[in-house]
């Protein structure tokens, strides 16, 4: 009997061609009823394209999709929702100034009175033990709570298939645990879940089956519980994955960067004020700053890079010299390079060639400008050097930054700063949106830099990354930086609580913490 039930969703031979790329190449897989199915792959492996076709945003060039055994003919998301396909996107579409309920009402296809809707919402919240106040204004909610709005939105449609796109990238460990509970409950009720992620230990913990995509093709289908993170990662990238060699027993030297009582007002309406931040980083040390997005990371980076000035010169000391009110160029000359999280338009100018993007920050330390004149051949040589040493996939130093994929541009930017051999390097999100191979490469480059005596500050939302790389770790929450802790002795539980800060229901969910990530967490994916 059992095998006569058609799968909830079956895809056969799906092919989608974009100008210049074959995004999906003869992709076939099936999702059973009540199954949590992982779709695993690096950036650009074709995951998003596949999902967009299921959700009716795009149509395949070839191949067929079946929904409960019948051809799937969703021509747009509205039709997909009517069939019972729900989707939670990585980036939420919420109005900050409206309440939870108002946001949900706006996203509903059918008209429902606000009272009836509220009753339905409360029903769903109760059924899935989700804590969310329908009358709170979205701008006051944490990221985890915002995601819950999107989940409720999807659940209101009684979905038969729920697609989750990178749902945990912005959550604290406690919020992740809570999310997994909800998803398991949904699956036990027969709802299938397509879970898109590149975080391997989450997939091992949650998913029944994993389909691995590489270069638009299905390379394997496996049972994550029988695989190791390393084996799945290698299938994803199609090669050996070297674990980051942390360099045992690194010696710390002098304090290279000291921040004492840095406070800054909110730059704009949605900014975060920095409150009395103090820390110091020694030569050879990697200092990690964890935290959920929007808790002052960007403001802190701007204050360190010099884009924002501190109130007094002595607040930031670089190699013993006060630089709190100096310009970015002055700080760079004095040995501090920084990389902001936004690559397009901040760390790089998309319309500029790679050579010109080199001039952007390396003109002083690499002497690409002499008495006001740009040394064009030197700047092309520098770009070529980055491309060669960091394995950047680009047509050459004349390629525009915008033409590079996210991961390649990140490699280029990291290379640009690392090849300037700064005494202090401050980076935000070093491997965001970067594929596993490139991430491992960047991590190794950072560790090697520390080995060579630089002081490094890494601001990241990826806790696994920070635990793998840093020697010392602090958590930033609402502009306040926690006391630094030694990573060797840090507890995930404590870090999670600090990340949650005053935001949410961390106290009660702390009881059900995820197990400490396996030793494999050094394998960054």
């Amino acid at each position, binding site marked *: 009997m059992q095998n006569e039930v058609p799968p909830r969703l079956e895809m056969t031979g799906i092919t989608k061609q974009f100008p210049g790329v074959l995004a999906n190449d003869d992709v076939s897989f099936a999702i059973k009823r009540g199954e949590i199915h992982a779709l695993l792959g690096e950036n650009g492996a074709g995951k998003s394209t596949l999902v967009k076709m299921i959700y009716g945003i795009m149509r395949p060039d070839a191949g067929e999709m079946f929904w409960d055994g019948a051809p799937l003919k969703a021509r747009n998301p509205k039709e997909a929702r009517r069939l019972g396909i729900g989707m939670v996107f990585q980036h939420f579409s919420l109005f900050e100034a409206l309440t939870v309920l108002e946001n949900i009402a706006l996203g509903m296809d059918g008209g429902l009175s606000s009272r009836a809707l509220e009753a339905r919402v409360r029903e769903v919240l109760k059924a899935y033990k989700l804590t969310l106040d329908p009358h709170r204004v979205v701008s006051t909610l944490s990221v985890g709570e915002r995601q819950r709005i999107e989940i409720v939105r999807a659940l209101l449609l009684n979905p038969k298939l729920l697609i989750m796109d990178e749902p945990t990238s912005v959550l604290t460990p406690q919020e992740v645990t809570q999310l997994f509970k909800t998803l398991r409950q949904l699956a036990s009720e027969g709802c299938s879940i397509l879970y898109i992620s590149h975080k391997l230990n989450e997939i091992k913990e949650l998913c029944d089956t994993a389909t691995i995509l590489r270069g638009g093709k299905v390379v394997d289908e496996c049972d994550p519980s029988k695989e190791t993170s390393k084996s799945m990662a290698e299938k994803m990238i199609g090669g050996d994955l070297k674990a980051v060699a942390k360099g045992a027993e690194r010696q710390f030297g002098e304090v290279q960067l000291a921040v004492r009582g840095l406070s800054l007002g909110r730059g704009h309406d949605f900014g975060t004020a920095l409150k009395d931040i103090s820390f110091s980083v020694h030569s050879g040390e990697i200092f990690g700053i964890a935290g959920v997005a929007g808790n002052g990371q960007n403001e802190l980076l701007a204050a360190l890079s010099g884009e924002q000035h501190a109130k007094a010169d002595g607040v930031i000391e670089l190699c013993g010299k006060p630089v709190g009110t100096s310009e970015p160029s002055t700080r760079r000359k004095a040995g501090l390079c920084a990389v902001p999280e936004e690559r397009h338009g901040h760390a790089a100018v998309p*319309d500029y060639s790679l050579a010109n993007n080199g001039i952007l920050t390396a003109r002083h330390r690499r002497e690409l400008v002499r008495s006001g004149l*740009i040394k064009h051949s030197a700047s092309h040589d520098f770009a070529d050097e980055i491309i060669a040493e960091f394995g950047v996939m680009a047509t050459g130093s004349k390629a525009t930054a915008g033409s590079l994929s996210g991961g390649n541009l990140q490699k280029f930017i990291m290379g640009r700063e690392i090849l300037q051999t700064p005494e202090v390097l401050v980076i935000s999100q070093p491997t965001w949106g970067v594929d596993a191979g490139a991430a491992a490469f960047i991590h190794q480059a950072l560790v090697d830099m520390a080995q060579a005596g630089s002081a490094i500050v890494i601001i990241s939302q990826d806790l696994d990354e920070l635990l793998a790389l840093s020697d010392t770790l602090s958590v930033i929450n609402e502009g306040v930086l926690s006391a630094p802790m030694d990573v060797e002795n840090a507890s995930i539980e404590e870090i999670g609580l600090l990340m949650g800060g005053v935001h949410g229901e961390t106290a009660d969910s702390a009881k059900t913490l995820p197990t400490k990530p396996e030793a494999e967490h050094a394998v960054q994916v």
Partner: protein
Amino acid sequence: MQFRFEKRAEPSRIMLYATPVAAVLLTMVLGAIIFTIIGYDGIGAVREIFFTPLTNSLKWQDLAVKAAPLIIIGVGLSIGYRANVWNIGAEGQYIIGGLAATGVALLTQNMSGWWILPLMGIAGIAGGAAYVAVPAFLRVRLKVNEILTTLMLTYVAVNILNYLVFGPWKSPTSFGQPQTVAFNESQSLPYIIEGTIVQAGAPIAIIVALVAWFVMSRTIFGFQINTVGSAPKAAAYAGFSANKTILLALFISGGLAGLAGMLEAAGPFGRMVPQFPSNYGFTAIIVAFLGRLHPIGVLFAGIVLAITFVGGEVAQTTIALPNAAVGIFQAMMLFLLLAGDILIRYRVVRVVVAKGREAT
């Protein structure tokens, strides 16, 4: 058959250079049609406006005279526009530059010497820059939109000009005409080609364009202007001060407009008159865009717009086309150019409608 726009992976370089040419050609076609419909000789209008100035060698010197101020102002504006600073009031800075030069001329009325012209040039540049300083500081200090302030100050400049030539600067020997005394030989631009009306303005325009080209493409200052304009956050990250860049970009565009004013006053006009504002400052906006904000492009665009000015005068006498027709042609050119810009980032693709769905 349906068409739609599809984003290009990279901006098209071919379209970047092809669209200005296409805009000019399309302007001719549409212009011919429009003027035929409203009862003029449309084809004749296009011929007289766009081609007679080129085919008739007698008109070449007129072209040089008209193109020079357009190029000088256009180069300055293009530098500002690259920095994302929208100086719309070059006409005003041009007038004040001309007035400042006239001021020097009136003070040195009974003197002679090689130093007078350079001094007038400096006064012109300083006048234009000083006049744009008001919007510049309002923009930097109070974030007042420079588009409005520069534009409105143009009308102030016109009234300052009128006040001076009708009042304190009026020549005692002009029989009531509102004009200053004529500039003497030391105060007038030399002719560079004997027997023509081409004065030093033309070579100066070429030099200005070449220097600007060098500065914008080879120096860190040009790099800074471009970066602040195209990616302000990246510029701040790179250590370029946005405010300093905005001030400098405005001073350069104002200063060059002032220089153009001085060259006009000391050149073709030879004195200050109420007819001095000749719309060069506004037309130079079209020049800057048609030249793709590139100094060498501006050089060619300046000549194209000069052709329409000279051709407009020809058409007035030969086929009785009203003077406003030139304005229509120029405006159409800018409109078509800006509309065509979408082709740089997008391509037109045919939408293939699946057979099965056509029925629905």
